[in-house]
């Protein structure tokens, strides 16, 4: 099982690839809506990618109030 830092790194890599944003521009405490320039529909798209990548289910309500990569990684880590 990946450790939290690995999980966070995978999320940043996947987000950069999917939304075509340079990886070096993404930092763990960034607001992913702003940094990735996405709305909530695109956030759901990211959620699908993350679920498929990590092989987990992450109910939408787990994203309540979550807007930074580090907190998102914590939510995902708890499902691994």
């Amino acid at each position, binding site marked *: 099982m990946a450790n939290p830092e690995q999980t966070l790194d995978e999320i940043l890599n996947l987000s950069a690839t999917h939304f075509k944003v340079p990886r070096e521009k993404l930092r763990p405490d960034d607001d992913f809506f702003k940094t990735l320039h*996405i709305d909530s529909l695109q956030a759901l798209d990211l959620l699908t990618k993350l*679920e498929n990548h990590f092989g987990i289910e992450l109910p939408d309500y787990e994203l309540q109030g979550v807007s930074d990569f580090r907190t998102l990684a914590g939510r995902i880590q708890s499902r691994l």
Partner: protein
Amino acid sequence: MNSFQGDTLSWELRDGVVELALHRDACNEIGSSTLEELEEFATAIERVENDAHALLIYSTLKCGFCAGADLRELYRRSNEMERGVAVEGVREFLERIHRVLNIIDSAPLTTIAAVHGVTFGGGFELALVCDLIIADKTARFCFPELRLGLIPGFGGIPRLKRDMGNAVVRDLLLTGRSFNASKAQSTGLVSQVVGEGEALRIARATASQLRKFDRATAAAAKKFIKPIPYEDLRREIDLFCELFVQPAVQNGLRKFVESTEAQPYLP
């Protein structure tokens, strides 16, 4: 006429397959303009069904199949009128959309929803009237109505009850969470999960396969195994209209419509 090009949707009958393409910006939200064109489509389907063996429904928009009812139109119209009049307007809308969806649900064709991306609320209900759902791996299914103080109103609950175990129905309705395509397939909701962008191609291949079968037999088998839950559908309309007058609904709609946050589609 074997084809139609509208503002919100288009359809064409070709080689025994009717293809209905949804294309209303931003994400095929179902309001009065879509309803009018769906009603015309339902009339056309009854006219061409003897020349077809399959119906495919899909979206040409990147965001997904359909994000559900046009909440902005619903909010605007219900705010323009006195509460009682607004509820009657809602009831009329629901009865009209139910008529359309019941026609598609019972059509003597094999119906296939080829979905991708957001398949929420009324969009999910449109997919549910089809015999088969083929989802690409980006598809997400959700009934978010509880977030607005409502229940699904386009027939989603009776059709979910028809097709799925009650525990799954409760999970979808009472948590308002979305299922990805794999989860939806594991519950039996989705027939096939395919690669991104492949749902329409595979739906067409499936429809082509169906050409080999005797149409009357296929239609009879479908009628036998797929009852239309008319009584529950009527009760759903009644319950929706009762709930619509609650203050929570107007508050929920206002919050969605007026939000400038990035999260209106998230809980």
